[in-house]
């Protein structure tokens, strides 16, 4: 299947439409809430929570014996929340650091979940197959009701973010100030965490436990490079997340044997790399260019400074000197001399240079040099 075929089929094929819509919506909610997670320095919370959700799925199945997606996700939500709040408790009550707490919850919950899953698989109950799709995610199993659920959750999340925008923003950047203003920081904090956990749980079915953290992080990290405004960042992250979802699905649909989750993650990672390199203000490329430009500029001014020193020893500043005189000084090239001529700092005449009055004034202003006659 080629890309054009994919877009033709997008509107007619039931499965493809579901998957594309599902991954797009997932990308949007993850980008939106991921921005908060990244800015709150909780980037890896997503990783821990997505792993911590596994025992919840297993326990929900053990209790109800039904494979209803909503019930399983509810179990995942509960166990994800337990994990999230235990992490906070551990950090505040003991001297264990956040990395240890995250790693602990991640591995212990996941291991426990694995034990339960393997235990379930050994049970004489034909109903249990397919629970492990939550491990690696299978976008292909998305049905319309799943997508509807995603859309509803995203809608609610959007509503809450809009309603509590001011509070979220305040808490993000200045927790103490928020407290002094009389907001209930604990409540706001719990609200944000709750929705981040919710987004993660919703995504488990599509991209799986391991890759969920990247879904949360990558769009936000990419968006962060382009802006310093929270609103722009959230919108941009949602867009990038949505695009990653659709493109990832398109690419995986056009090839054989390409699972959707990993492709989406790679597309999102590609966005991150592009943003890291090409963002105009923070990007590595432009940073490097600026660095080189500054260095050249400095070199030029050092040459001018040197010339100024020579010119000062003469009565009239525009007294011509041979270029050879500059040989002691390493920082000049033919190109830089020509550049200085362009700036009208010096006049070049065959093998001789002379400082112009403009160049003299410029050199005087360099490095806070005060005029000599003071």
């Amino acid at each position: 299947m080629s890309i054009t075929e994919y877009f033709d089929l997008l509107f007619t094929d039931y499965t493809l439409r579901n998957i594309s819509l599902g991954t797009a919506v997932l990308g949007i909610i993850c980008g939106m809430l991921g921005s908060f997670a990244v800015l709150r320095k909780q980037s890896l919370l997503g990783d821990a929570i997505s792993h911590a959700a596994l025992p919840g799925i297993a326990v929900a199945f053990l209790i109800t014996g039904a494979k209803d997606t909503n019930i399983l996700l509810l179990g995942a939500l509960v166990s994800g929340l337990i994990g999230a709040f235990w992490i906070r408790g551990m950090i505040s009550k003991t001297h264990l650091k956040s990395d240890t707490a995250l790693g602990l919850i991640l591995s212990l919950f996941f291991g426990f979940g694995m034990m339960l899953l393997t235990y379930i698989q050994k049970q004489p109950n034909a109903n249990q197959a397919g629970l492990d799709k939550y491990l690696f995610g299978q976008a292909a199993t998305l049905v319309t009701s799943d997508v509807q659920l995603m859309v509803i959750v995203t809608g609610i999340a959007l509503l809450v973010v809009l309603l509590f925008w001011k509070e979220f923003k305040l808490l993000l950047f200045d927790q103490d100030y928020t407290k002094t203003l009389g907001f209930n920081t604990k409540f706001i904090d719990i609200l944000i965490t709750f929705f981040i956990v919710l987004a993660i749980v919703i995504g488990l079915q599509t991209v799986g436990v391991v890759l969920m953290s990247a879904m949360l992080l990558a769009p936000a990290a990419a968006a962060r490079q382009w802006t310093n405004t929270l609103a722009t960042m959230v919108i941009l992250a949602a867009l990038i997340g949505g695009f990653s979802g659709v493109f990832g699905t398109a690419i995986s649909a056009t090839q054989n044997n390409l699972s959707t989750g990993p492709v989406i993650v790679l597309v999102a990672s590609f966005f991150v790399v592009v943003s890291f390199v090409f963002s105009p203000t923070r990007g590595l490329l432009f940073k490097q260019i600026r660095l080189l430009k500054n260095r050249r500029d400095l070199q030029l001014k050092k040459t001018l400074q040197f010339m100024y020193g020579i010119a000062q020893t003469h009565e009239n500043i525009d007294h011509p000197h041979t270029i050879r005189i500059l040989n002691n000084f390493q920082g000049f090239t033919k190109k830089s001399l020509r550049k200085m001529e362009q700036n009208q700092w010096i006049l070049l005449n065959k093998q001789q240079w002379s400082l112009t009055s403009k160049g003299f004034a410029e050199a005087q202003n360099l490095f806070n040099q005060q005029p000599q006659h003071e």
Partner: protein
Amino acid sequence: MSNPQIEIQLIAALVAAACAIPGVFLVLRKMALISDAISHSILPGIVLGFFITQDLNSPVLIILAAGTGIITVVLVERIQKTGLVKEDTAIGLVFPALFSIGVLLIAKNANDIHLDVDAVLLGELAFAPFDRLLLFGADLGPKAAWIMGVILLTTLLLLYLFFKELKVSTFDVGLSSALGFSPAILHYGLMSVSSITVVGAFDAVGAILVVALMIAPAAAAYLLTADLKKMLWLSVCFGVFAAISGYWLAHWLDASIAGSITTVLGLVFLLVYFFAPNKGMLSVMYRQKQQRTEVSLLTFLLHLNNHQETQERHINHLREHINWQQVKANTVVRLALDNNLITITDEVISLTQKGLSFTQTALEYIITNKDDKIEHLKDDFFLFRG
């Protein structure tokens, strides 16, 4: 107990011990999550190595995969250095991308290789004894045991040789570089050891359990002691204990061995987390409660000190004046009585000589904030222990 059973427990114990040692340093250096990143991102290395060697236990594969682990660490540090994102974000960006590449490599070549993602992530210890090390036709035992044994011995040797350097650079980077130990070499050495351990262990126990075996024993030990040597011993003990009892739990439940070991680790950690003396949940909560009471006691004594008139010192008046609940007031008064700080005559409370001098010292401390005034109080009161 049959022979394979003993062998499985041996392998599990070896893995646990080999993971616990680098784990301690990772936890202390606040790099616990690097183990998570490494354990996932070795996947492409394993897949590529498997293409080349066609053998999951080949040393070449282990070295290739460990190389990927180190590449992960370097990539994370590079991204961090650009200052574009924070450290944890860098970790979170690198390993899912590498893991995705690994998953896709497997999926694309699914027909050619006997390797799937479940096996890498979850491992299957039960099959480990079937892969024997044959040398000149003689059966020398399971390959996994030999690999982990070699890794454990190497780790122990390196630990013995560089214990001092590791200790200094873990707790004081500045001092260690001033003393001439290169923090970079130690850092990458530790990363290499962790990486090799993860790769050696993943086949037997899976990537996630490796993380659990690295972090959980070390975290539990950290709650119990502040001594590095003791912490190392304790975490090895916790790890080995969880490995063996986890095996029997799995045997009983007929569930995944890796999952059961992690569950036991979780229980061990939970116990320590709640009941550790000094640093456990309960003891922290007890201390905080005690500190609250002592603050109240101090307020109470200062109040007594400020008021000479009897009606201010009447026992019923106190309750409304300092605005305390009955229970709290009773606790505080009893505490003060027990410590001979006050006497009660005709329901009027007055400070004893001891109470007076105590109040004076405390007051002096509050005013001057100098520690030496209260040195002798620290033994009796939590409040002043900082």
